[in-house]
């Protein structure tokens, strides 16, 4: 009796694995590649013909040592690998009372104060905290607008022009009430590069 049950179980598992583990994902892959190829392949973005990333995956705009490049809008802090490592998504998992997190926030605060020439109270929370995925492609509109004077100065473009560009990239809440308003950093920077 017991052997028979096991034999039944084994056969059921093999057949269902073929249906659910092979047939089903292939069906979805077929639908994705035929009907929704842009999304299925990662919403890739091109600039001058070359793929420069995915609109959904955040990137860092820093030099090799992790210092902010002043001519680009900066993403949030990231705990994915050495920062925005698409092969190692992760949050920091620091608890609210962790002294390492407290000092990291303090350091980020002073770095942004000097980079953007602003006072601490003007800096929004997303600029000081690492996201859940470490690959957050967005920043808040407040953080984007905060970076306008520095980016404009570094590029020698009028501030009003850069500010208008940022405003055109502010994405409202989905359906007007879901999530928070955002700015996609990669899309903004691509448009920025076209300004000159």
């Amino acid at each position: 009796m017991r052997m028979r049950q096991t034999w039944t179980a084994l056969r059921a598992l093999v057949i269902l694995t073929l249906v659910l583990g092979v047939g089903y994902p292939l069906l979805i892959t077929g639908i994705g590649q035929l009907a929704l190829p842009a999304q299925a392949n990662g919403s890739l973005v091109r600039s001058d013909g070359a793929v420069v990333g995915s609109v959904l995956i955040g990137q860092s705009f820093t030099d090799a040592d992790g210092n902010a490049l002043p001519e680009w809008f900066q993403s949030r802090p990231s705990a994915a690998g050495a920062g925005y490592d698409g092969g190692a998504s992760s949050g920091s998992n620091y608890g609210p009372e962790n002294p390492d997190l407290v000092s990291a926030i303090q350091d980020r605060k002073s770095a942004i104060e000097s980079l953007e020439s602003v006072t601490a109270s003007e800096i929004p929370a997303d600029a000081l905290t690492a996201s859940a995925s470490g690959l957050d492609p967005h920043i808040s509109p407040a953080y984007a607008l905060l970076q306008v004077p520095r980016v404009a100065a570094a590029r020698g473009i009028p501030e009003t022009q850069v500010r208008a560009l940022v405003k055109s990239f502010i994405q409202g809440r989905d359906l007007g009430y879901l999530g928070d308003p955002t700015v996609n950093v990669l899309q903004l920077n691509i448009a920025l590069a076209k300004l000159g």
Partner: protein
Amino acid sequence: MDAAAADPTIWLFLAQLGSVVLVLALVYRPLGDYIAATYTGTRTLRVEKGLYRMIGVDPASEQSWPSYLRSVLAFSAVGVLAVYALQRLQPVLPYSLGLPPTIEPLAFNTAISFVTNTNWQSYSPELTLGYTVQLAGLAVQNFLSAAVGIAVAVALIRGFAYRSSGTIGNFWVDLTRGTLRILLPLSVVAAVVLLAGGVIQNFSGFQEVTTISGGTAVVPGGPVASQEAIKLLGTNGGGFFNANSAHPFENPTPWTSIVEVLLFLVIPFSMPRAFGRMVGDNRQGIAIVGTMAVLFVVSLSLMTWAELAGSGTAPQLAGGAMEGKETRFGILGSTLYATSTTLTSTGSVNSMHDSFTSLGGGVALVNMMLGEVAPGGVGGGLYGILVVAIIAVFIAGLMVGRTPEYLGKRLGAREIKLASLYILTTPTLVLVGTALSFAIPAVRQDVEGTSIWNPGLHGFSEVLYAFTSAANNNGSAFAGLTANTPWFNTALGVAMFLGRFLPIVFVLALAGSLAAQDKIPVTPGTLPTHRPQFVGLLIGTVLLVSALTYFPVLALGPLAEGL
């Protein structure tokens, strides 16, 4: 926060909650009725006939409860061996991305984790598992463990519905129908919706690109949409990526996030309708779903309040509790997901619970401690709350001095013993597991030296959270904890296994003894179990059972840290 900023937040919260409630309310009847029809219908589809023939099962026959249980256990055992073998054989499987075999303790933990519908992940998927293990091992168990859970719940419903019966259904038929008629079609629709939102579905591996600032970036690939759909629908929760549903390729937008929440709420919240329908009194289902809904709304409000208030040193310094949260979801999108995932035994996350405020993270912990009944997992939620209902009726019966009965079935010593054993199982596993982690000197050294990430009280909460999650088959984590150690892989593996299958043994035994009884007629002395009064009694019992058990450990962890 000034009044002008606070006002829209409240409205946004209510609009979001209102949408969830509206969708679930609209789906409740049709989906619940469909589930009931799936398990009571006599028609066999042609593909099902073929399957029964190949596995050697007569779909017209029914099983006694011990036989049903043996089938559940045999099927699950075979599943554990298959997932274990696939991981160990990884290098020879196609699309393994050059990854080595998973080490033994981790392979053991992961195999149990996915077969028990827990989806605890001691590993980082990107760095550990290739596509074949994810598809043929993990995603398959995402379907099957969910179908097993629903089957057990249906068997318990039959216990109430049948009269003087020696059988409680046929496991193989229940498994097949749940998989092919409910989970698979819904998953196909869900996967396509998620694809449209930006979830990927390819076999490209990791693509390296040169960025516009001259650096390099990695864009990961993978068959994600197909796995994401069943991961959520089956209240599984195991992420394709380490960041789980916070990863933009698993959950790209605020609207996909609420769709994902609906995906894992929809079956558990419709099961009470299937229950009401099968026992022939829809009001009984309404009372159960009402209990679940009240607990859900209260819990969501508490967690949202805690996160918006953002107390704690780091959130105060940053000006908001945004550590471990994605910009696109914001706080409201994060707490909706976190509440839903911890109340459903799903365990996938769109924000990092370890970084929540002390009280917000504490609510996530308490949600699991309630026993995953509001609404709980796809099947486990319903059988869990029915066991609590039995306890509630028993308590009420003691108060008025009558033999307790529920849905026309007398609850004698045997039934109450089984329900009590069920209630005791998970708290025992949670408390013993946590205690052993600190009581055995060598283990304690390893736990404190290697595993715990955050210092102080929060580190204790990480361990407590891990065992609570494992024993309740949730799978979410205070993910700072390094769980890929021999101790945690083994102890959590055992907790998941016993936390899943001991309750199933008790539930099926209960189903058997209820099915064997004839129905007793309703008298003026019968406690009505469809009125608001009973909903109140049931909520009280859920809270009483868990609060009394867990209050001391909560006081050592999140309460001490947050107050």
